[in-house]
Protein backbone atom coordinates (compact mmCIF):
# COMPACT_ATOMS: atom_id res chain seq x y z
CA UNK A 1 0.00 0.00 0.00
CA UNK A 2 2.83 2.37 -0.76
CA UNK A 3 1.76 5.72 -1.97
CA UNK A 4 3.64 8.82 -3.01
CA UNK A 5 6.45 9.21 -5.45
CA UNK A 6 9.83 7.58 -5.68
CA UNK A 7 10.43 3.92 -6.27
CA UNK A 8 9.01 0.94 -4.47
CA UNK A 9 11.74 -1.27 -5.89
CA UNK A 10 15.05 -0.47 -7.48
CA UNK A 11 17.52 -3.10 -8.63
CA UNK A 12 20.87 -1.76 -9.80
CA UNK A 13 23.53 -3.83 -11.53
CA UNK A 14 22.49 -7.04 -9.87
CA UNK A 15 24.68 -10.06 -10.56
CA UNK A 16 24.56 -13.49 -9.01
CA UNK A 17 26.74 -16.52 -9.42
CA UNK A 18 26.62 -19.82 -7.59
CA UNK A 19 29.70 -21.73 -6.58
CA UNK A 20 29.56 -25.45 -5.97
CA UNK A 21 31.89 -28.44 -6.25
CA UNK A 22 31.30 -28.43 -9.99
CA UNK A 23 32.57 -24.86 -10.32
CA UNK A 24 31.00 -21.46 -10.61
CA UNK A 25 27.83 -20.84 -12.58
CA UNK A 26 26.79 -17.31 -13.38
CA UNK A 27 23.01 -17.13 -13.21
CA UNK A 28 22.54 -13.36 -13.52
CA UNK A 29 25.10 -11.13 -15.26
CA UNK A 30 23.55 -7.72 -14.88
CA UNK A 31 19.94 -6.79 -14.20
CA UNK A 32 18.55 -3.30 -13.59
CA UNK A 33 14.87 -2.79 -12.96
CA UNK A 34 12.59 -0.55 -10.98
CA UNK A 35 8.96 -0.27 -9.99
CA UNK A 36 7.09 2.85 -8.94
CA UNK A 37 4.52 2.48 -6.17
CA UNK A 38 1.40 0.73 -7.43
CA UNK A 39 3.05 -0.51 -10.62
CA UNK A 40 3.25 -4.06 -11.85
CA UNK A 41 6.66 -4.79 -13.36
CA UNK A 42 7.29 -8.09 -15.07
CA UNK A 43 10.49 -10.00 -15.69
CA UNK A 44 10.19 -12.19 -18.74
CA UNK A 45 12.81 -14.35 -20.34
CA UNK A 46 13.63 -17.80 -21.68
CA UNK A 47 13.06 -20.69 -19.31
CA UNK A 48 15.91 -21.08 -16.81
CA UNK A 49 17.39 -17.66 -17.58
CA UNK A 50 17.72 -16.61 -13.95
CA UNK A 51 14.46 -14.68 -13.47
CA UNK A 52 13.65 -16.51 -10.27
CA UNK A 53 17.18 -15.92 -9.01
CA UNK A 54 16.62 -12.16 -9.34
CA UNK A 55 13.49 -12.48 -7.21
CA UNK A 56 15.18 -14.71 -4.66
CA UNK A 57 17.79 -11.99 -4.22
CA UNK A 58 15.18 -9.24 -3.97
CA UNK A 59 13.23 -11.31 -1.41
CA UNK A 60 16.39 -11.76 0.64
CA UNK A 61 16.60 -15.54 0.22
CA UNK A 62 19.92 -15.06 -1.60
CA UNK A 63 22.61 -12.40 -1.40
CA UNK A 64 23.73 -10.72 -4.65
CA UNK A 65 27.28 -11.25 -5.92
CA UNK A 66 27.26 -7.64 -7.07
CA UNK A 67 24.79 -4.77 -7.27
CA UNK A 68 22.20 -3.27 -5.02
CA UNK A 69 18.56 -3.75 -4.13
CA UNK A 70 16.54 -0.83 -2.77
CA UNK A 71 13.10 -1.44 -1.38
CA UNK A 72 11.02 1.62 -0.58
CA UNK A 73 14.01 3.81 -1.38
CA UNK A 74 16.56 2.37 1.02
CA UNK A 75 19.13 -0.39 0.84
CA UNK A 76 18.37 -3.02 3.43
CA UNK A 77 21.07 -5.55 4.16
CA UNK A 78 18.63 -8.12 5.52
CA UNK A 79 15.76 -8.00 3.05
CA UNK A 80 13.82 -10.94 4.49
CA UNK A 81 10.41 -9.54 5.36
CA UNK A 82 10.89 -6.34 3.35
CA UNK A 83 8.69 -7.75 0.58
CA UNK A 84 6.09 -10.50 0.34
CA UNK A 85 6.92 -13.50 -1.77
CA UNK A 86 4.71 -15.96 -3.61
CA UNK A 87 6.56 -19.06 -4.82
CA UNK A 88 5.91 -20.90 -8.08
CA UNK A 89 3.85 -23.58 -6.43
CA UNK A 90 1.28 -22.19 -4.03
CA UNK A 91 3.12 -23.61 -0.97
CA UNK A 92 -0.07 -23.61 1.10
CA UNK A 93 0.56 -25.48 4.34
CA UNK A 94 -1.67 -28.58 4.26
CA UNK A 95 -2.15 -28.49 8.05
CA UNK A 96 -3.59 -24.97 8.13
CA UNK A 97 -7.10 -24.15 7.01
CA UNK A 98 -7.37 -21.75 4.10
CA UNK A 99 -7.96 -18.74 6.34
CA UNK A 100 -5.04 -19.76 8.57
CA UNK A 101 -2.78 -19.99 5.54
CA UNK A 102 -3.77 -16.44 4.64
CA UNK A 103 -3.13 -15.20 8.19
CA UNK A 104 0.30 -16.86 8.29
CA UNK A 105 2.40 -13.69 7.74
CA UNK A 106 0.38 -11.86 10.39
CA UNK A 107 0.65 -14.67 12.93
CA UNK A 108 4.39 -15.02 12.36
CA UNK A 109 4.73 -11.29 12.92
CA UNK A 110 3.09 -11.68 16.32
CA UNK A 111 -0.66 -11.22 15.75
CA UNK A 112 -2.95 -13.46 17.72
CA UNK A 113 -4.66 -16.04 15.48
CA UNK A 114 -8.09 -14.60 16.28
CA UNK A 115 -7.10 -11.01 15.50
CA UNK A 116 -5.39 -12.12 12.30
CA UNK A 117 -8.50 -13.99 11.21
CA UNK A 118 -10.69 -10.97 11.85
CA UNK A 119 -8.29 -8.92 9.76
CA UNK A 120 -8.27 -11.19 6.69
CA UNK A 121 -11.89 -12.31 6.73
CA UNK A 122 -13.09 -9.29 4.70
CA UNK A 123 -10.28 -9.92 2.23
CA UNK A 124 -11.38 -13.54 1.73
CA UNK A 125 -15.04 -12.54 1.35
CA UNK A 126 -14.27 -9.68 -0.99
CA UNK A 127 -12.10 -11.77 -3.29
CA UNK A 128 -14.09 -14.97 -3.65
CA UNK A 129 -12.74 -17.23 -0.93
CA UNK A 130 -15.32 -16.51 1.79
CA UNK A 131 -16.98 -19.92 1.45
CA UNK A 132 -13.64 -21.70 1.58
CA UNK A 133 -12.18 -19.98 4.64
CA UNK A 134 -12.63 -23.03 6.86
CA UNK A 135 -11.67 -25.59 4.20
CA UNK A 136 -8.41 -27.54 4.17
CA UNK A 137 -6.14 -26.76 1.22
CA UNK A 138 -6.64 -30.21 -0.35
CA UNK A 139 -10.32 -29.42 -0.73
CA UNK A 140 -9.59 -26.51 -3.10
CA UNK A 141 -9.12 -26.51 -6.86
CA UNK A 142 -5.80 -25.35 -8.27
CA UNK A 143 -7.21 -21.93 -9.10
CA UNK A 144 -8.66 -21.45 -5.63
CA UNK A 145 -5.39 -22.51 -4.04
CA UNK A 146 -3.57 -19.84 -6.01
CA UNK A 147 -6.08 -17.21 -4.95
CA UNK A 148 -5.48 -18.18 -1.34
CA UNK A 149 -1.72 -18.05 -1.90
CA UNK A 150 -2.00 -14.56 -3.37
CA UNK A 151 -4.20 -13.29 -0.55
CA UNK A 152 -1.63 -14.69 1.89
CA UNK A 153 0.98 -12.68 0.00
CA UNK A 154 -0.92 -9.40 0.39
CA UNK A 155 -2.44 -10.09 3.82
CA UNK A 156 0.19 -8.08 5.68
CA UNK A 157 -0.17 -5.20 3.19
CA UNK A 158 3.39 -5.36 1.92
CA UNK A 159 4.97 -2.47 0.06
CA UNK A 160 6.08 -4.92 -2.58
CA UNK A 161 4.78 -8.34 -3.59
CA UNK A 162 6.97 -10.69 -5.61
CA UNK A 163 5.10 -13.30 -7.64
CA UNK A 164 7.31 -16.00 -9.12
CA UNK A 165 5.45 -17.57 -12.06
CA UNK A 166 2.32 -17.62 -9.91
CA UNK A 167 0.04 -19.27 -12.47
CA UNK A 168 2.60 -21.47 -14.21
CA UNK A 169 1.10 -24.73 -12.97
CA UNK A 170 -2.48 -23.92 -14.01
CA UNK A 171 -4.42 -24.78 -17.16
CA UNK A 172 -5.04 -22.01 -19.72
CA UNK A 173 -8.65 -21.25 -18.81
CA UNK A 174 -7.97 -21.07 -15.08
CA UNK A 175 -4.89 -18.98 -15.71
CA UNK A 176 -6.76 -16.37 -17.79
CA UNK A 177 -9.43 -16.30 -15.09
CA UNK A 178 -6.84 -15.72 -12.38
CA UNK A 179 -5.05 -13.01 -14.37
CA UNK A 180 -8.35 -11.14 -14.53
CA UNK A 181 -8.88 -11.72 -10.82
CA UNK A 182 -5.36 -10.58 -9.93
CA UNK A 183 -5.78 -7.47 -12.03
CA UNK A 184 -8.99 -6.59 -10.15
CA UNK A 185 -7.57 -7.32 -6.69
CA UNK A 186 -4.51 -5.26 -7.41
CA UNK A 187 -6.54 -2.36 -8.73
CA UNK A 188 -8.35 -2.33 -5.41
CA UNK A 189 -5.42 -2.89 -3.05
CA UNK A 190 -2.86 -0.86 -5.02
CA UNK A 191 -0.08 -3.31 -4.20
CA UNK A 192 3.20 -2.87 -6.05
CA UNK A 193 3.97 -6.14 -7.75
CA UNK A 194 7.01 -7.74 -9.30
CA UNK A 195 6.02 -10.65 -11.52
CA UNK A 196 8.11 -13.36 -13.13
CA UNK A 197 6.58 -15.17 -16.07
CA UNK A 198 7.42 -16.75 -19.40
CA UNK A 199 3.91 -16.20 -20.72
CA UNK A 200 3.80 -13.30 -23.22
CA UNK A 201 0.03 -12.77 -23.04
CA UNK A 202 0.14 -12.78 -19.23
CA UNK A 203 2.92 -10.20 -19.23
CA UNK A 204 1.04 -7.86 -21.55
CA UNK A 205 -2.29 -8.26 -19.78
CA UNK A 206 -0.98 -7.60 -16.28
CA UNK A 207 2.05 -5.32 -16.61
CA UNK A 208 2.81 -1.64 -16.67
CA UNK A 209 6.41 -2.38 -17.59
CA UNK A 210 7.97 -5.55 -18.98
CA UNK A 211 11.69 -6.19 -18.58
CA UNK A 212 12.96 -8.71 -21.14
CA UNK A 213 15.92 -10.82 -20.04
CA UNK A 214 18.37 -12.78 -22.17
CA UNK A 215 19.05 -16.47 -21.67
CA UNK A 216 21.37 -17.35 -18.80
CA UNK A 217 23.33 -15.53 -17.54
CA UNK A 218 20.52 -13.01 -17.51
CA UNK A 219 20.97 -9.47 -18.75
CA UNK A 220 18.33 -6.89 -19.58
CA UNK A 221 17.69 -7.14 -23.32
CA UNK A 222 14.85 -4.61 -23.55
CA UNK A 223 12.26 -2.74 -21.53
CA UNK A 224 8.71 -2.47 -22.86
CA UNK A 225 6.14 -0.03 -21.53
CA UNK A 226 2.62 -1.44 -21.66
CA UNK A 227 0.45 1.65 -22.13
CA UNK A 228 -2.89 -0.13 -22.36
CA UNK A 229 -5.58 1.60 -20.30
CA UNK A 230 -6.81 0.12 -17.04
CA UNK A 231 -8.96 -1.55 -15.89
CA UNK A 232 -8.25 -4.26 -18.43
CA UNK A 233 -10.94 -6.78 -19.20
CA UNK A 234 -10.76 -10.18 -20.84
CA UNK A 235 -12.14 -8.66 -24.08
CA UNK A 236 -9.20 -6.27 -24.24
CA UNK A 237 -7.08 -9.23 -25.26
CA UNK A 238 -8.87 -9.12 -28.63
CA UNK A 239 -7.86 -5.50 -29.33
CA UNK A 240 -5.33 -4.70 -32.03
CA UNK A 241 -3.18 -2.74 -29.56
CA UNK A 242 -2.97 -5.80 -27.31
CA UNK A 243 -1.97 -7.99 -30.23
CA UNK A 244 0.64 -5.43 -31.33
CA UNK A 245 2.23 -5.44 -27.91
CA UNK A 246 2.23 -9.22 -27.79
CA UNK A 247 3.93 -9.34 -31.18
CA UNK A 248 6.54 -6.79 -30.13
CA UNK A 249 7.23 -8.61 -26.89
CA UNK A 250 7.53 -11.94 -28.69
CA UNK A 251 9.94 -10.32 -31.13
CA UNK A 252 12.03 -8.87 -28.27
CA UNK A 253 12.11 -12.26 -26.58
CA UNK A 254 13.33 -13.91 -29.80
CA UNK A 255 16.04 -11.31 -30.15
CA UNK A 256 16.99 -11.74 -26.50
CA UNK A 257 17.36 -15.48 -26.98
CA UNK A 258 19.46 -14.94 -30.14
CA UNK A 259 21.60 -12.32 -28.45
CA UNK A 260 22.79 -14.88 -25.97
CA UNK A 261 23.64 -17.47 -28.63
CA UNK A 262 26.97 -15.77 -28.98
CA UNK A 263 30.45 -16.73 -27.89
CA UNK A 264 29.33 -17.74 -24.41
CA UNK A 265 26.47 -19.94 -25.52
CA UNK A 266 28.42 -23.17 -25.45
CA UNK A 267 29.17 -22.70 -21.74
CA UNK A 268 25.54 -22.41 -20.80
CA UNK A 269 24.35 -25.30 -18.71
CA UNK A 270 21.39 -27.14 -20.23
CA UNK A 271 18.08 -26.40 -18.56
Amino acid at each position, binding site marked *: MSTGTGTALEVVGLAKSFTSDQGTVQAVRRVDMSARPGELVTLIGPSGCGKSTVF*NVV*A*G*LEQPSAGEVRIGGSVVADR*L*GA*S*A*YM*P*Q*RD*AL*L*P*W*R*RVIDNVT*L*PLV*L*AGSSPAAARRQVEPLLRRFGLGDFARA*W*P*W*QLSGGMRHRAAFLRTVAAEPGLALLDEPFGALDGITRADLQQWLSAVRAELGTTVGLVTHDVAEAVFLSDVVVVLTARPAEVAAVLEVDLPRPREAEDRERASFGDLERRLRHLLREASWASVGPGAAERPPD
Partner: protein
Amino acid sequence: MKAGLSLVAGESVVPGVGRRPGARRWLPPALVLIAAVGLWQLVTVVFGTSPTILPGPALVVVSTWADRADLAPALATTTVEAVAGLALAVAVAVPLAISIDWSRTARAGVYPLVVASQTVPVIALAPLVVIWFGFGEGPKIGLVALFSFFPIVVGAVQGLASADRDAVDLLRTMRASRWQLLWRVRWPSALPQCFTGLKISVTYAYTSAIVAEYVGATQGLGVYMNAASQAAPRRTDLVFGATGATALATVALFLLVGLAERLAMPWRPPSRS
Protein backbone atom coordinates in the same frame (compact mmCIF):
# COMPACT_ATOMS: atom_id res chain seq x y z
CA MET B 1 7.76 -58.22 9.94
CA LYS B 2 5.06 -58.48 7.31
CA ALA B 3 3.01 -55.85 9.11
CA GLY B 4 6.04 -53.57 9.41
CA LEU B 5 6.84 -53.74 5.73
CA SER B 6 3.36 -53.10 4.44
CA LEU B 7 2.89 -50.20 6.84
CA VAL B 8 5.86 -48.35 5.47
CA ALA B 9 4.00 -48.08 2.21
CA GLY B 10 0.88 -46.62 3.78
CA GLU B 11 -2.22 -47.47 5.73
CA SER B 12 -3.53 -50.18 3.49
CA VAL B 13 -2.24 -53.59 4.42
CA VAL B 14 -3.05 -55.08 1.02
CA PRO B 15 -2.44 -52.81 -1.98
CA GLY B 16 -5.64 -51.71 -3.61
CA VAL B 17 -7.86 -52.93 -0.77
CA GLY B 18 -7.54 -49.80 1.38
CA ARG B 19 -10.41 -47.86 -0.13
CA ARG B 20 -12.97 -50.64 0.04
CA PRO B 21 -15.60 -50.72 2.76
CA GLY B 22 -14.81 -52.59 5.99
CA ALA B 23 -16.32 -56.00 5.26
CA ARG B 24 -14.53 -56.49 1.97
CA ARG B 25 -11.28 -55.46 3.57
CA TRP B 26 -11.49 -57.68 6.62
CA LEU B 27 -13.33 -60.67 5.15
CA PRO B 28 -10.48 -62.30 3.15
CA PRO B 29 -7.96 -62.44 6.03
CA ALA B 30 -10.71 -63.52 8.43
CA LEU B 31 -11.67 -66.41 6.15
CA VAL B 32 -8.05 -67.51 5.83
CA LEU B 33 -7.66 -67.35 9.61
CA ILE B 34 -10.81 -69.39 10.21
CA ALA B 35 -9.67 -72.00 7.67
CA ALA B 36 -6.25 -72.24 9.32
CA VAL B 37 -7.76 -72.65 12.80
CA GLY B 38 -10.16 -75.25 11.43
CA LEU B 39 -7.29 -77.16 9.87
CA TRP B 40 -5.37 -76.98 13.13
CA GLN B 41 -8.32 -78.40 15.07
CA LEU B 42 -8.75 -81.12 12.43
CA VAL B 43 -5.09 -82.16 12.67
CA THR B 44 -5.20 -82.47 16.46
CA VAL B 45 -8.40 -84.56 16.29
CA VAL B 46 -7.35 -86.81 13.39
CA PHE B 47 -3.82 -87.49 14.64
CA GLY B 48 -4.74 -87.37 18.31
CA THR B 49 -1.79 -85.13 19.16
CA SER B 50 -0.82 -84.84 22.79
CA PRO B 51 -2.07 -81.58 24.32
CA THR B 52 1.39 -80.99 25.82
CA ILE B 53 2.86 -80.94 22.28
CA LEU B 54 0.07 -79.46 20.13
CA PRO B 55 -3.22 -78.62 21.83
CA GLY B 56 -6.16 -77.86 19.55
CA PRO B 57 -7.54 -74.32 19.29
CA ALA B 58 -10.73 -75.21 21.14
CA LEU B 59 -8.74 -76.48 24.12
CA VAL B 60 -6.51 -73.38 23.98
CA VAL B 61 -9.49 -71.06 24.13
CA VAL B 62 -11.23 -73.00 26.91
CA SER B 63 -8.19 -73.35 29.18
CA THR B 64 -7.01 -69.80 28.57
CA TRP B 65 -10.42 -68.49 29.55
CA ALA B 66 -10.40 -70.71 32.61
CA ASP B 67 -7.01 -69.28 33.58
CA ARG B 68 -8.01 -65.66 32.95
CA ALA B 69 -7.53 -64.68 36.60
CA ASP B 70 -3.80 -65.38 36.19
CA LEU B 71 -3.45 -64.27 32.59
CA ALA B 72 -5.12 -60.86 32.96
CA PRO B 73 -2.66 -59.39 35.50
CA ALA B 74 0.26 -60.77 33.46
CA LEU B 75 -1.14 -59.14 30.33
CA ALA B 76 -1.69 -55.89 32.25
CA THR B 77 1.90 -55.82 33.51
CA THR B 78 3.34 -56.44 30.07
CA THR B 79 0.99 -53.87 28.53
CA VAL B 80 2.19 -51.24 31.00
CA GLU B 81 5.80 -52.08 30.11
CA ALA B 82 5.11 -52.00 26.36
CA VAL B 83 3.13 -48.74 26.39
CA ALA B 84 5.44 -46.95 28.84
CA GLY B 85 8.44 -48.18 26.84
CA LEU B 86 6.95 -46.80 23.64
CA ALA B 87 6.16 -43.51 25.35
CA LEU B 88 9.72 -43.27 26.62
CA ALA B 89 11.01 -44.10 23.12
CA VAL B 90 8.93 -41.28 21.62
CA ALA B 91 10.03 -38.89 24.36
CA VAL B 92 13.68 -39.63 23.59
CA ALA B 93 13.41 -40.07 19.83
CA VAL B 94 11.61 -36.84 18.96
CA PRO B 95 14.01 -34.38 20.65
CA LEU B 96 16.91 -36.46 19.33
CA ALA B 97 15.55 -36.29 15.78
CA ILE B 98 14.97 -32.55 16.09
CA SER B 99 18.53 -31.97 17.30
CA ILE B 100 19.89 -34.17 14.50
CA ASP B 101 17.85 -32.15 12.00
CA TRP B 102 18.84 -28.90 13.66
CA SER B 103 22.58 -29.12 14.01
CA ARG B 104 25.26 -30.40 11.69
CA THR B 105 27.30 -31.45 14.72
CA ALA B 106 24.51 -33.59 16.11
CA ARG B 107 23.94 -35.12 12.70
CA ALA B 108 27.62 -35.96 12.32
CA GLY B 109 28.19 -37.00 15.94
CA VAL B 110 24.96 -38.63 17.05
CA TYR B 111 23.19 -40.09 14.03
CA PRO B 112 25.88 -42.71 13.27
CA LEU B 113 25.79 -43.75 16.92
CA VAL B 114 22.01 -44.06 16.80
CA VAL B 115 22.39 -46.36 13.80
CA ALA B 116 25.25 -48.23 15.48
CA SER B 117 23.14 -48.68 18.62
CA GLN B 118 20.93 -51.00 16.59
CA THR B 119 23.80 -53.39 16.09
CA VAL B 120 23.95 -54.00 19.86
CA PRO B 121 21.92 -57.16 20.51
CA VAL B 122 19.40 -55.76 22.94
CA ILE B 123 18.40 -59.28 24.01
CA ALA B 124 21.95 -59.75 25.23
CA LEU B 125 21.60 -56.59 27.28
CA ALA B 126 18.61 -57.97 29.16
CA PRO B 127 20.66 -59.97 31.72
CA LEU B 128 22.90 -56.95 32.29
CA VAL B 129 19.89 -54.79 32.94
CA VAL B 130 18.57 -57.32 35.43
CA ILE B 131 21.96 -57.43 37.16
CA TRP B 132 22.08 -53.65 37.40
CA PHE B 133 18.48 -52.68 37.97
CA GLY B 134 16.82 -55.80 39.30
CA PHE B 135 13.56 -57.58 38.50
CA GLY B 136 11.13 -54.67 38.46
CA GLU B 137 9.18 -53.15 35.59
CA GLY B 138 11.44 -50.11 35.15
CA PRO B 139 14.27 -52.02 33.43
CA LYS B 140 11.73 -53.66 31.07
CA ILE B 141 10.41 -50.27 30.10
CA GLY B 142 13.96 -49.18 29.35
CA LEU B 143 14.57 -52.24 27.18
CA VAL B 144 11.33 -51.75 25.24
CA ALA B 145 12.34 -48.12 24.66
CA LEU B 146 15.80 -49.21 23.50
CA PHE B 147 14.20 -51.67 21.07
CA SER B 148 11.66 -49.28 19.67
CA PHE B 149 13.21 -45.81 19.54
CA PHE B 150 15.23 -46.44 16.39
CA PRO B 151 12.39 -46.56 13.81
CA ILE B 152 10.89 -43.44 15.39
CA VAL B 153 14.16 -41.49 15.20
CA VAL B 154 14.74 -42.51 11.59
CA GLY B 155 11.15 -41.69 10.63
CA ALA B 156 11.29 -38.31 12.38
CA VAL B 157 14.67 -37.35 10.91
CA GLN B 158 13.52 -38.21 7.40
CA GLY B 159 10.19 -36.51 7.97
CA LEU B 160 11.82 -33.30 9.22
CA ALA B 161 14.14 -33.29 6.21
CA SER B 162 11.22 -33.87 3.84
CA ALA B 163 9.65 -30.48 4.58
CA ASP B 164 8.65 -28.62 1.42
CA ARG B 165 11.53 -26.31 0.45
CA ASP B 166 9.16 -23.75 -1.03
CA ALA B 167 7.24 -23.58 2.23
CA VAL B 168 10.46 -23.19 4.21
CA ASP B 169 11.64 -20.38 1.90
CA LEU B 170 8.23 -18.76 2.09
CA LEU B 171 8.34 -18.66 5.86
CA ARG B 172 11.89 -17.32 5.75
CA THR B 173 10.61 -14.39 3.65
CA MET B 174 8.12 -13.81 6.47
CA ARG B 175 11.06 -13.61 8.88
CA ALA B 176 10.10 -16.81 10.67
CA SER B 177 12.45 -17.83 13.45
CA ARG B 178 14.00 -21.29 13.57
CA TRP B 179 11.45 -22.34 16.16
CA GLN B 180 8.61 -21.03 14.04
CA LEU B 181 9.97 -22.94 11.04
CA LEU B 182 10.17 -26.07 13.15
CA TRP B 183 6.75 -25.72 14.68
CA ARG B 184 4.86 -24.40 11.64
CA VAL B 185 6.47 -26.39 8.83
CA ARG B 186 9.01 -29.05 9.71
CA TRP B 187 7.23 -30.79 12.56
CA PRO B 188 3.84 -31.12 10.82
CA SER B 189 5.70 -32.38 7.72
CA ALA B 190 7.44 -34.99 9.86
CA LEU B 191 4.31 -36.34 11.55
CA PRO B 192 3.35 -38.96 8.93
CA GLN B 193 6.80 -40.53 8.95
CA CYS B 194 6.97 -40.33 12.76
CA PHE B 195 3.79 -42.34 12.93
CA THR B 196 5.09 -44.85 10.39
CA GLY B 197 8.13 -45.35 12.64
CA LEU B 198 5.94 -45.61 15.73
CA LYS B 199 3.73 -48.23 14.05
CA ILE B 200 6.78 -50.34 13.26
CA SER B 201 7.90 -49.96 16.88
CA VAL B 202 4.48 -51.03 18.16
CA THR B 203 4.95 -54.41 16.51
CA TYR B 204 8.16 -54.89 18.55
CA ALA B 205 6.95 -53.53 21.87
CA TYR B 206 5.19 -56.57 23.39
CA THR B 207 7.80 -58.96 22.05
CA SER B 208 10.68 -57.02 23.59
CA ALA B 209 8.86 -56.68 26.92
CA ILE B 210 8.25 -60.44 26.99
CA VAL B 211 11.86 -61.22 26.11
CA ALA B 212 13.00 -58.95 28.93
CA GLU B 213 10.64 -60.77 31.30
CA TYR B 214 12.01 -64.18 30.29
CA VAL B 215 15.38 -63.14 31.60
CA GLY B 216 14.19 -62.14 34.99
CA ALA B 217 10.91 -60.79 36.28
CA THR B 218 8.29 -61.47 38.87
CA GLN B 219 5.25 -60.63 36.75
CA GLY B 220 4.15 -60.41 33.15
CA LEU B 221 3.44 -62.53 30.09
CA GLY B 222 7.04 -63.71 29.86
CA VAL B 223 6.85 -65.07 33.41
CA TYR B 224 3.43 -66.55 32.67
CA MET B 225 4.66 -68.37 29.54
CA ASN B 226 7.78 -69.55 31.29
CA ALA B 227 5.76 -70.97 34.14
CA ALA B 228 3.28 -72.64 31.77
CA SER B 229 6.03 -74.27 29.71
CA GLN B 230 7.83 -75.57 32.78
CA ALA B 231 4.79 -76.81 34.65
CA ALA B 232 4.31 -80.53 35.15
CA PRO B 233 2.46 -81.52 33.10
CA ARG B 234 3.37 -78.85 30.55
CA ARG B 235 0.61 -76.31 29.91
CA THR B 236 1.30 -75.86 26.21
CA ASP B 237 -2.31 -74.74 25.80
CA LEU B 238 -1.66 -71.76 28.06
CA VAL B 239 1.53 -70.88 26.15
CA PHE B 240 -0.58 -70.74 23.00
CA GLY B 241 -3.23 -68.75 24.83
CA ALA B 242 -0.70 -66.18 26.07
CA THR B 243 0.76 -65.93 22.57
CA GLY B 244 -2.69 -65.28 21.13
CA ALA B 245 -3.38 -62.68 23.81
CA THR B 246 -0.09 -60.96 22.93
CA ALA B 247 -1.01 -60.87 19.26
CA LEU B 248 -4.46 -59.43 20.01
CA ALA B 249 -2.97 -56.82 22.35
CA THR B 250 -0.43 -55.82 19.68
CA VAL B 251 -3.18 -55.43 17.09
CA ALA B 252 -5.21 -53.34 19.55
CA LEU B 253 -2.24 -51.08 20.29
CA PHE B 254 -1.57 -50.78 16.59
CA LEU B 255 -5.15 -49.70 15.87
CA LEU B 256 -4.94 -47.23 18.75
CA VAL B 257 -1.84 -45.65 17.24
CA GLY B 258 -3.66 -45.50 13.89
CA LEU B 259 -6.49 -43.64 15.61
CA ALA B 260 -4.04 -41.27 17.28
CA GLU B 261 -2.47 -40.67 13.87
CA ARG B 262 -5.80 -39.66 12.39
CA LEU B 263 -6.56 -37.38 15.34
CA ALA B 264 -3.12 -35.80 15.19
CA MET B 265 -3.49 -34.96 11.50
CA PRO B 266 -7.07 -33.86 10.93
CA TRP B 267 -6.03 -32.02 7.80
CA ARG B 268 -5.41 -35.14 5.74
CA PRO B 269 -8.01 -36.15 3.16
CA PRO B 270 -10.03 -39.18 4.29
CA SER B 271 -9.51 -42.69 2.85
CA ARG B 272 -5.96 -42.01 1.83
CA SER B 273 -4.01 -45.15 1.12
